[in-house]
């Protein structure tokens, strides 16, 4: 069971879980017509380090403006949370016409997933008073969102924040996933 904090703070924090976050896929303008495509993720988890978020907030929003904007972030790194039931079926991105690899929940692949032994995913179960079903963070699908957009969205779409130690565990696993080295297959 994941320890969570239900109190909403005005600044975005590492470990925050926020509902209905939009990712801009593209915005093109041609011959006077503009087309913008976005993906709306039901739940995302904030990955950016909390010290960076704290400094961004302090220097961007407080009176402590300073002489430069050196501590401002350009974006905040997040990763989607997917419903574990959808992930087992490989259909969590079916609305985007993407078929994912099914994972057999009753055999080893499902057990490895729930034990956080698959580097790509982080499995989370929430207390009963948190309205989130068991879910996984998919580290491969990380993306960035605008700082001011996420701060504004958090006001009404904040769900909870993953508690300390648990969020450090997630950060540790995410950094390990990003730092992995893919070695070439040995030639026969």
């Amino acid at each position, binding site marked *: 069971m994941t320890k969570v904090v239900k109190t909403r703070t005005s600044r975005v924090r590492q470990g925050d879980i926020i509902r209905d976050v939009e990712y801009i896929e593209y915005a093109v303008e041609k011959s006077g017509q*503009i087309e913008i495509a976005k993906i709306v993720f039901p739940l995302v988890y904030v990955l950016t380090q909390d010290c960076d978020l704290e400094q961004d907030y302090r220097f961007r929003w407080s009176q402590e403006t300073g002489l430069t904007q050196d501590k401002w972030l350009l974006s905040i790194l997040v990763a989607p949370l997917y419903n574990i*039931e959808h992930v087992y079926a490989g259909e969590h991105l079916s609305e985007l016409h993407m078929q994912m690899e099914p994972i057999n929940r009753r055999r080893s692949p499902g057990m490895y997933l729930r034990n956080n032994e698959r580097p790509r995913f982080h499995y989370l179960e929430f207390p009963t008073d948190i309205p989130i079903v068991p879910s996984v963070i998919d580290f491969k699908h990380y993306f960035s969102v605008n700082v001011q957009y996420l701060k504004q969205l958090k006001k009404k779409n904040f769900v909870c924040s993953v508690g300390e130690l648990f969020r450090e565990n997630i950060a540790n696993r995410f950094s390990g996933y990003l730092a992995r080295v893919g070695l070439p297959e040995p030639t026969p």
Partner: protein
Amino acid sequence: MADSTAGFSSDYVGENKGTTNVNATGEIPQVADEADSSAMTIDIAKYGSTKARRVVIKGIVAQ
């Protein structure tokens, strides 16, 4: 080349399923359009949340 920072026109009607158009006041509607309705058929009690969905917005750049 048109100014891409200009506002939207409200007279463009998207043809593709899943598009969302700006409304008469030039604002982008926040309510999901009909293409999103399939996501709402998911059993919320069982699954707890809907799936990620794509929304496409089309408009005309004001000249």
